């Protein structure tokens, strides 16, 4: 790593580097199997966001923003919502009813399979994208905000400067 000074200690960084893929995979699992087991779009999206929040905590904000930019996160956020809306609106196109489940729900090898519930997994995926991007954005924005004090001479200083004094 180039930015040794930023972020937390070497141990945390190493563990994060190993774990981030697995956490992301776990999020994907929760999203995709949301209609069969406990979970769904929202919890899965939270786990997606947790991956990036962990990277932000361990390596610092700049490193995380290099991986996924603010504009990209904002666009993913809109994309998730739009996808959900498109899936719901396609119901009008196919069956004439908003939000109707227009994909075949029957599966040859029986119920409770991955592709046995029509549009629900697609909805879950779009919610996962939306929630993950939104929560990551909220965390980044909270980390940008600084509490400002007046130092008694009419100047404004941040918390870190105050602590140094």
């Amino acid at each position, binding site marked *: 790593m180039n930015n040794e000074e930023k972020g937390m200690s070497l141990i945390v960084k190493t563990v994060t580097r190993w774990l981030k893929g697995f956490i992301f995979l776990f999020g994907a699992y929760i999203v995709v199997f949301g209609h069969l087991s406990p979970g769904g779009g929202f919890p899965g999206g939270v786990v997606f966001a947790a991956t990036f929040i962990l990277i932000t905590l361990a390596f610092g904000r700049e490193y995380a923003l290099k991986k996924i930019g603010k*504009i990209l996160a*904002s*666009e993913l956020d*809109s*994309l998730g*919502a*739009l996808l959900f*809306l498109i899936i*719901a*609106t396609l*119901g*009008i196109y196919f*069956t004439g*009813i*908003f*939000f*109707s*489940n227009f994909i075949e729900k029957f599966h040859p090898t029986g119920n409770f399979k991955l592709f046995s519930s029509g549009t629900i997994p697609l909805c879950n995926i779009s919610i996962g994208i939306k929630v993950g991007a939104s929560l990551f954005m909220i965390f980044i924005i909270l980390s940008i905000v600084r509490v400002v004090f007046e130092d008694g001479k009419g100047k404004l200083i941040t918390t870190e400067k105050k602590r140094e004094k």
Partner: protein
Amino acid sequence: MINLPLFVIIPFGVAFFIPMVSRKIKWVPDVLGNLTTFILLLLSLMTLNQEHVYHIGGWKPPFGIVLVLDGLSCLLLIIINLISFMATLFSIEYIEKRFTSKLRYYSLFLLMVGGMNGTVLSGDLFNLFVFMEIASIASYALVGFGCEASELEASFKYLVMGNVASLFVLYGVALLYGKTGSLNIADVARILKEIPSDNLVNFAFVLLIGGFMVKSALVPFHAWLPDAHPSAPAPISAMLSGVVIKALGVYVICRLIFNLFGFNHLISQTLIYLGVISMIVGVCLALLQSDLKRLLAYHSISQIGYVFVGIGIGTPLGILGGLFHLFNHSLFKSLLFLDSGSIEYQTGTRDLNKMGLLYKKMPITSFSTLFASLSISGIPPFNGFWSKLIIILAAIKSGKSIIALWAVIGSILTLSSFTKVLRYSIYGKGEKWEKEKWEKLKEVPDTMVVPLIILSLLCLFTGLLIIGGTEGIFASTIDVLEGSVLKYINKVLGS
């Protein structure tokens, strides 16, 4: 038959589409925003005199979510989409000069419009709460859109008050769900009719009505409004005052009282007394203000008092007066806020003392301010006169002459307050008026003038809608509120 989910799909879709395309292309937010609100206005006009229950996903109530269109929803849909079209038209130049991020502005604006459309269409308590939260959260962000210290403070105050109200509502919905096991308004009403009334239901009722009264800014709950409305950009003030407090406050209270819990003498008394207190306190506080937008915000509290008095009287004539005043108030109050916006756009101040002789430099703005002032003070032949007249007549007919007297006093105080506005800003001079600044003033750009003219003409002519009285154009709306709980249950559940 119109597809009811379109009222929610179109604004939400465009709201999320705008941020994806308009970072590169600058003209997209303006065009898309105005086009969307215009289409929504046309769609809402098409719902006139229609009744429809839409089952989302094909699931029958009480298991599925329903959207219900009836006379009351139709009235609110037209108000919401008419005022939002006027506001977006006004925003093109206004936001360009005074604020930066148009794509965020239009995105939040359309989320607010979609949330309100959903609120007035929803036939399901929890969906109503969710749509209300969407509209509220978008409006918290829009109030603080300028990011000045005072705007952020107002936005935070509004956020805290609004969230407390939302929690009340959520708790009320949860208690009702626990008691009845259903969230569909008609189904809850059906079950509540069958089981004996107990204190839990009464408590849920108080929580729900209390929460929505904060949103509609009646007097004991009004503290957020005089800060939030002046701080917002002018088109947003027009939306907040003209539409949001009605769609999220008055509409839901009407729906819950008349179609869910049932109307009785105690509720009638409560609404009338709170209405009278708002009416008088709001206008008395407005008399003291010298900030133009703050003055208008206090008048909103006062005029909402009139609406509640009309609805609280509960006779068909009273309900007609209340709803007609709700319609008229949305027209003239949004016109007044847009006027204050164009005055602020040119003079750079909201302080009445620093304005003066605007009629020579800004004739159209001055005329529309005059029209709206006469309308809000209840001078014939403007629309405000007719609705106030009906409220007063209804009060006298139902033997409440004292209430009628208070309504007249409130109207006189309103007139005196607006005489002050006209005297300081338009036809006379304030104390700190500066000649050099005044000479440089000119009329606002064309796209800002158009909504002012349209709304002024509407103020002048919508008085005609009253022809026919309770049998006229408002008949289907009054029918919803007058027709008792049973009728609503039958319509939604289709038994």
